[in-house]
């Protein structure tokens, strides 16, 4: 085969000097406390909040959108918005644009190599990826704690741990935090960390936007947590008007939180999409990019195109609360249907934002642990693109019983059923890759196989929900709850943990403990199924969602589910113990390529240097040539040699001498 691509002339900046960053002339970055870091971000947030709250009270003194409540939504909104702005100012995310606006010369920042760079606004995509790991785990465990509260309340149908207001606040907070987390759970940590390495680039297209997306993600977390200080919000994560209009201060946290996180989502999606399109190494054609990159590309299309609807809907809600508009208030000429449709027009692509990266991770893991190429790579990519495209056409299946025009129902039933065809491609590719393989049941592989098991249940129950007559029975009940937990948690979160176990040795340079990983997997898998499978039955037997009282005869099922949920929660502690032990307390250095993978990201030393590759590789084929006689070379790594898969089951080898381009 011939090398058709030309070598790239030297890269953006000579190695090893770090890239030019924005340095505000008057506030030089320097090591230590007197620079911008998490602490200054917190200070900025507090000062911003106080200023915004005060401004809100000045602008709309005495305004309460609910009579006699004493809650000034303008002040709360002002506080939250300026708090977010202050947080970003404090961390230094706005230094560069502000310097440019004012006409000041920007200069390179102090480039930290200490651990404190994880607490700063750092534009190295690998640092951002690891920051996201901690960020999404914080979201996950907060939401998980709230879930434990929900399951505790549901232990008894008649005696109550929480008052109804507290309970509904917990339910709403759990849902919203988990959805915000799940949106970025793979794109954030693994997308940012892996994509440039997988495509043979040194950085993403917009490193400042990438770092900004992380810090606004954390700001969104704090905003949504602030709801608890305002007494929570009563609408669930779906935020239906007019209950939304009726709600108090906590509602502003929800609306502002979504707007803020939405901006972060759009930024991250935009950045990764441009990176994938423009920054691929020479020779990396569209049929050679790793399948994970395809899944991220499809996800980024959804992130960039669907999220603006959410942000707009959030703004309308904020205006309804503060400026006395009536977008969602039927009595004054608006419509509660407007919120429902805007929300779900975003909401449905949102859940595919969550599903697609999970598939991508699983497809990266499968070939490595079956030592076989990915079956039907093009079908896999087509499946992901097909799902992304179709996901815009199905949103009204959430609204079948809402009083929408009945003509719409068969149409959306059709589109929803059709979307299961590209989803089925995922199974074709997965099962085909397993055929006559040599399966090694390492911890990442266990999680990948679990996705296939769980998502099958989740996906097929989705077909049940899409059938309009059956939807009459199951809409709004625990059946829906079980369905989306099976797809989002059973699919995405399992894939996330599989990806973590797989890539953490490269990301941190430390090996995760295998025994603890296996214990974590089995407890999580078994008790996840024991928690959520009974919920299908609970829903069929008539228990609606988000209730704190239910029929007496359902107590046994609910208790079974709750106890399993507690054990499921405990399994995450095993992961935390493993994480802390293996990375901080008793670390074992990991080899550069412990799983013998052909991926480009594994062909770097551990820890990965700042500039990723000494020399940008020239890609010669896709990275799935396992167990192939006379396999083509995967990539020319320059002085390090040529990456070649050396036959069946042997470790990927790198030849000593660079091979001349052969035909």
């Amino acid at each position, binding site marked *: 085969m011939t090398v058709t691509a030309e070598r790239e002339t030297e890269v953006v900046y000579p190695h090893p000097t770090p890239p030019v960053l924005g340095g505000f002339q008057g506030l030089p970055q320097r090591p230590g406390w007197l620079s911008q870091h998490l602490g200054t971000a917190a200070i900025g947030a507090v000062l911003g909040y106080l200023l915004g709250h005060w401004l809100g009270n000045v602008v709309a003194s005495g305004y309460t959108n609910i009579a006699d409540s004493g809650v000034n939504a303008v002040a709360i909104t002002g506080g939250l918005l300026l708090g977010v702005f202050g947080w970003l100012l404090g961390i230094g995310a706005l230094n560069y644009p502000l310097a440019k606006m004012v006409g000041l010369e920007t200069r390179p920042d102090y480039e930290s190599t200490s651990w404190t760079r994880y607490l700063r606004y750092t534009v190295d995509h690998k640092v951002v990826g690891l920051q996201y790991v901690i960020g999404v785990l914080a979201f996950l465990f907060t939401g998980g704690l709230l879930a434990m509260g929900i399951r505790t309340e549901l232990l008894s149908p008649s005696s109550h741990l929480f008052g*109804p207001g507290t309970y*509904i606040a917990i339910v709403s907070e759990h849902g919203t935090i988990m959805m915000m987390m799940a949106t970025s759970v793979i794109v954030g940590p693994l997308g940012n960390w892996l994509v440039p390495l997988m495509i043979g680039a040194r950085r993403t297209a917009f490193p400042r936007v990438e770092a900004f997306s992380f810090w606004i993600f954390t700001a969104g977390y704090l905003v949504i947590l602030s709801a608890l200080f305002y007494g929570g919000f009563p609408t669930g994560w*779906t935020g*239906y008007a007019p*209950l939304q209009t009726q709600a108090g201060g906590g509602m502003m946290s929800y609306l502002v939180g979504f707007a803020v996180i939405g901006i972060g989502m759009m930024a991250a999606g935009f950045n990764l999409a441009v990176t994938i399109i423009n920054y691929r190494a020479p020779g990396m054609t569209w049929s050679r990019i790793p399948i994970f990159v395809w899944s991220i590309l499809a996800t980024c299309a959804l992130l960039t195109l669907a999220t603006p609807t959410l942000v707009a809907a959030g703004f309308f809600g904020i205006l309804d609360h503060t400026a006395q508009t009536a977008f969602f208030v*039927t*009595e004054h000429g608006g419509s*509660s249907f407007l919120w429902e449709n805007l929300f779900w027009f975003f909401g449905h692509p949102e859940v595919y934002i969550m599903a697609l990266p999970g598939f991508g991770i699983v497809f990266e893991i499968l070939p490595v642990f*079956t*030592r*076989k190429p*990915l*079956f*039907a790579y093009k*079908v896999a990519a087509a499946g992901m693109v097909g799902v992304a495209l179709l996901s815009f056409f199905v949103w009204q299946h959430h609204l*079948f*019983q*809402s*009083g*929408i025009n*009945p003509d719409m129902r*068969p149409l959306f*039933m059709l589109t929803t*059923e*059709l979307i*299961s*065809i590209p989803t*089925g491609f995922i199974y*074709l590719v997965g*099962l085909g890759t397993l*055929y*006559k393989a*040599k*399966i*090694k*049941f390492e911890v990442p592989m266990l999680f990948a196989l679990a996705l*296939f*098991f769980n998502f*099958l*249940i989740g996906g*097929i129950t989705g077909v*049940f929900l*899409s*059938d309009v*007559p*059956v939807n*009459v*029975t199951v*809409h*709004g*009940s625990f059946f829906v709850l079980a369905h989306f937990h099976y797809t989002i948690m059973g699919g995405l979160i399992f894939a996330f943990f599989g990806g973590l176990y797989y890539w953490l040795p490269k990301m941190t340079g430390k090996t995760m403990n295998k025994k603890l990983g296996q214990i974590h997997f089995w407890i999580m898998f078994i008790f996840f199924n024991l928690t959520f499978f009974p919920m299908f039955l609970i829903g069929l037997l*008539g228990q*609606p*969602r988000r209730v*704190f*009282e239910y029929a007496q005869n359902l107590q046994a099922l609910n208790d079974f589910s709750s106890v399993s949920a507690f054990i499921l929660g405990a399994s995450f502690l095993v992961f935390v113990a493993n994480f802390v032990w293996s990375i901080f307390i008793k670390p074992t250095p990991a080899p550069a390529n412990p799983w013998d993978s052909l991926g480009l990201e594994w062909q770097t030393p551990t820890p990965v240097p700042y500039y990723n590759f000494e020399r940008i590789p020239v890609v010669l084929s896709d990275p*799935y040539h396992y*167990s192939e006689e006379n396999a083509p070379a995967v990539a020319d790594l320059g002085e390090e040699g040529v990456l070649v898969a050396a036959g*069946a*089951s042997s470790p990927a080898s790198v030849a000593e001498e660079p091979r001349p381009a052969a035909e």
Partner: protein
Amino acid sequence: MTIDNAESEGQGVAAEAEAVIAQPGKEPRHIWRMVAIWLVLSAVLDPLFYILVGPHVPPGTMTSAAKDNQFDFNILLVAALPVFLAVWVYLAYSAVMWRASRKGAPEPVGGAQARTHLGLQVGWIVTTTVIVLGLFAFGTVEVITKAGSGGGEGPNPIWTPTSATILPVQVIAQQWKFTYRYPTFGGFETQDLVLPNNTTIAFHVTSLDVIHGFWAYQLSIKADANPQQDDVAYATTRQTGSVTVRCEELCGLWHGAMFNYGKVVSKAAFVAWAKSTPTPSSCRPLPTRTCPTQTAPMAGTTPTTWIPIATQRSTGPSRRHRDTDHLWIPVHQSC
């Protein structure tokens, strides 16, 4: 690659089978094996489910809508079960037969044959498309021919029942209770949903404040209650029994406690109950709008206040009520 036969003789059948697998030229036909296992399991479990579990599947058979939705669920499960089994059988088979730890495991074969198989890909796509389109056709036929299958159709329903007499019941949701109003019986309001047997009922669901969800479980009726909107759902009662009504759309603080009960009784018992429940004289009706009646009143009722019922779709220019005719349905206040 060869295997030590002496070694395998000392072990069980599985080892022998694996020995056979390992010998060149004696590759077992994995796909046929899996298909066989799958066929047997499906042939046993599908009818077992349909016959034993099917008649007890929610929501039961109290109304025509319930019976139809139970049937739809059963058909879907009968179609889904083989799909579940196919993937599970494959996953289990591959985990056992193709695990790396088995003795003498052959090396997997990569290359072009492992990367693509056009026949399989095309076959898969065609099969899944046929199944999906079949399910879509089934669902559409069911929802159209069964008067909307108990789902709320909005203010202008297009799939209406064919029976000549329809009893309208207005469901008024508020935070946090359901009230039922019987316009053909003088418009009295009650919190007991009592319904006559063997009658087609039109539920007109609306809300006084936020969005609620009217879910009459045994009747298989589910319709969102939107403020200032009418949402119409149909069912024909077929059996007597008790009914649980729950709110299935989060509506605030006491959403979890928003439920009440009702029952389906004989026609005579219903008329007797309805006539004996007085409209409190202290109630003042709000301004009403009357529309020309579309169907004959139910025997024994007094047609005082009517809720307009949309006409069935016809081939001519469709006559539908405007939304505003349904918007402000007469409701008694201060009761």
